[in-house]
Structures are given as C-alpha cells and as structure tokens.
C-alpha cells in the first residue's frame, strides 16, 4: 500500500516538475530538453510484471502527450523504454537476484548500478522521442546530438534527485 502511494506521489511530482518547469527551461534555444519524468518508469518496483510496466509506461507517456499536445510521441517512447526495462534489469541482475519489494535506488543497488541502469535506459527513450518528433532522417546528426546531450542532462538530473531524496530517507531511518 505504501509502495503504491509513494509511486503515485512520485508520478504526480515528476509530471508536475516536467510540465511546469523542465519543459520551459529553453536551454541552448531549446536544443537540449531534459525529460526527467522517465524516472517514474525506472523506479517502479522490481517485481512488477512486464505487462503492467508496459501499461504504466504507456499511461505516463500519454499523460505527457496531453500536457504538451503532442500526438502519441511520449506514449511511444515510454512504451519502448518500459519494454527495454525488463531486458536491462535481466542484464544487470546481481548474482543472488533482486530483493522483493524494493525500488531501484542508490540505497538498495548502489551508485554505479543506478548510473549504468540510467545510461542504458534514458538514451533509448530520448532517441525514440526526438526521432519521432522530427519524423525524418535528413537531419540525422543534429537530432542524434540533441537526443544524446538531452539524455546526458536527464541522467545528471536523475543522479541528483537520487542523491537528494536518498539522504532524506537515510535521516528518517
């Protein structure tokens, strides 16, 4: 129950942060846009079955689409990322498996693991999103560069968020 509640709160906070602040940053004339909201999909509990991660991913993307009046671009990118999550988790699985009932955070998995995890997942989402947004390949290097630079920024923000929220949890304990 607490897991569900904390995920709902995380969803609302991340979407609000994205549409109210990050979408309006206009870094380098809008060339680079961090999409921090994908952290919600990344931080879903380990034991959640793939199909429900897929549905939640699609719903997250659809919410972003309503806010930014884009037709299904975020929904598609999030679904691709949710699908990739299962594979990436299997790839990064520790020898004794994942603990039941924990979310992927720095506390539970360590800094290097979270960094690898985001470095594998975030570029998938960003590349898919930026390329469906442009919807053509004639400016390939530019779009590729935009997606990767934005992904770098998103990963930096994810690590920052993890460090800030992590410290609070430690204090509480």
């Amino acid at each position, binding site marked *: 129950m607490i897991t569900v509640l904390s995920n709902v709160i995380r969803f609302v906070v991340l979407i609000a942060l994205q549409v109210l602040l990050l979408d309006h940053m*206009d870094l380098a004339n809008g060339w680079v846009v961090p999409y921090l909201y994908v952290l919600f999909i990344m931080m879903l509990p380990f034991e959640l079955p793939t199909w429900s991660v897929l*549905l939640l991913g699609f719903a997250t993307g659809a919410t972003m689409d309503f806010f930014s*009046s*884009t037709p*299904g671009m975020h929904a598609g990118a999030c679904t691709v990322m949710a*699908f990739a999550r299962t594979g990436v988790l299997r790839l990064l699985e520790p020898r004794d498996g994942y603990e039941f009932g924990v979310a992927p955070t720095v506390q539970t998995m360590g800094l290097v693991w979270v960094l690898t995890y985001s470095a594998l997942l975030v570029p998938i989402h960003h590349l898919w999103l930026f390329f469906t947004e442009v919807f053509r390949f004639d400016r390939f290097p530019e779009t590729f560069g935009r997606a990767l630079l934005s992904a770098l920024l998103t990963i930096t923000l994810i690590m920052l968020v993890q460090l800030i929220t992590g410290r609070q949890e430690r204090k509480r304990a």
Partner: protein
Amino acid sequence: MRDLFRFLWRSRSTLLFIGLMVLSFLWLANGNDHHRAQTFTSSQAAIGTLYGWRDQVVRYTDLDGENEILAAAQAEMMNRMRSSYLNSSAPFVVVNDTLLQQQYKYISTRVLNSTTSKQKNFLTLDKGSKAGLAAGMGVIAANGIVGVVRECSPRFSTVTSVLNSSWNISVLNPRTEHFGLLNWDTADPTTARVKDIPKHARIVVGDTIVTGGDDRVFPKGVPVGVVESVVNDDGAVALDIIVRLSHDMTRIGHVWVVTDLLKLERDTLEAKLDAE
C-alpha cells in the same frame, strides 16, 4: 489449440508491447486531426487551469520586458490616434465616417503556456469561445504574428505557433509585391523560411516581410520579420529566404486575437461558388 493459447499467454508482454506501439503510431498518424483533439476538450480545460496557476506564479518574472513591449505598442497606437494629427482643413470636420467600416476587431488575451523547443509548438490562451474566439483566427503580439487559433474550449484556446513546421502562412514583400509562404523549418525559434518567391524577384537582405492577408487569417501588412539571407540556388525553382521573426517567440505574454468581421459574409458568398 491449447498450445496456441499457451504460446499467446507466454508472449503476452511482447504482444502487449506491439499493441501499445501500434496504438501510439495510430495516435501519431492522426495527430493533426482536428476532430481527435475535440474529444479532449475536458482534459484540455483541466490542463489549461493548471497552466493558468503556473502563469500566475511566473508572470511576474518577466514584467520588465512585458512593460517595455506594451509601452512601445501603446506609443505606436497613440501615433495613429486622430488627436495626434493636426487638422489642416478645420472647417470640414468629418462627423460620421460612413466610408470606413471596421473590418478587424482585436481581443486582448494572455498566454498561459507556450513552447518553442519542439518541432510543433503550441500556445494556450486564457480566453475561449465565451470571449468570442474561434478556430482559424490569427494571433498577433506587439511586434508581429504569433500563430493561429487551433481550437477553443469555453474558457481556453490552443494556438498553433508560427514555430510549427506543419503550418504555412501567406506572406508578402510589400516593396516588390511578391507573395510567398512562410514555414518554420529552421529549428531555430528566432528565424523562419519563406518559400515560393520566384527567382527573378529582387529580394534583398533587410527587406521587411508582412502578412499577405489573402488567407483571411491576418489583416494585410502585419509584420512578420526581416530578411536575413537570400540564396539563389541554380537548381532550385524559387528563392531560399530566411527571415528573422520580428516578435521574439521565447518571450511572449500579451497577445491579441484578430477577428475578421467580414469573414462570414465573404465565406458565404464564396461557398456559393463551390456549390456550383
């Protein structure tokens, strides 16, 4: 048969993934369909309210620049007022001007939300059909065009921005009287491209580009931008012109929606042509 069901059940995630991807592509393919967007008006109103709250917080941060632009616009208007002109023929005062009929009406609105970093950018306005706004009306700011109203809920409207690669608007170079099409494919929020101006036209850097007015979205002569570069390529059929947009789309607060009071009359007349 049981094997088939077992197979389907085992690959349910992959099937769901494919299903969701097909759904997202269908959504993308119907993305610009006006009717699709109509069904989301209630969610649009909720999103408009949220963006309204954001605007109440953020609007104060840009008051200086906003005041500057409004003061300049007011000065421009005052220059046009009858009281700013000296009457050189005092005995003949025009009391009731029946020769001029008002054709365009301006409705002042606030921009609640705008983007400039996407391929297709939109704005949200704080007025809707209750204030007389309707789809297809032009939106201008103090220094030039901003976009066209895409759809209206009772209290909010969405606007297709000039910075939207799928939107074209007819523009005119008043010096040479050449018409062209403005399209934003420069991926840079300060510039746009003008197409379809023939190669023999003598367009020079520094020419002012204004709206053409023939597509009934804007009055004729609203500033659009200033020509920044002209390329006359041997292989091309038209000039490749880049204009610097006269209104800074990244700083936008107050805008005016233009209503053409004679549009209905003209449309009704022209609809008879189509019916024949």
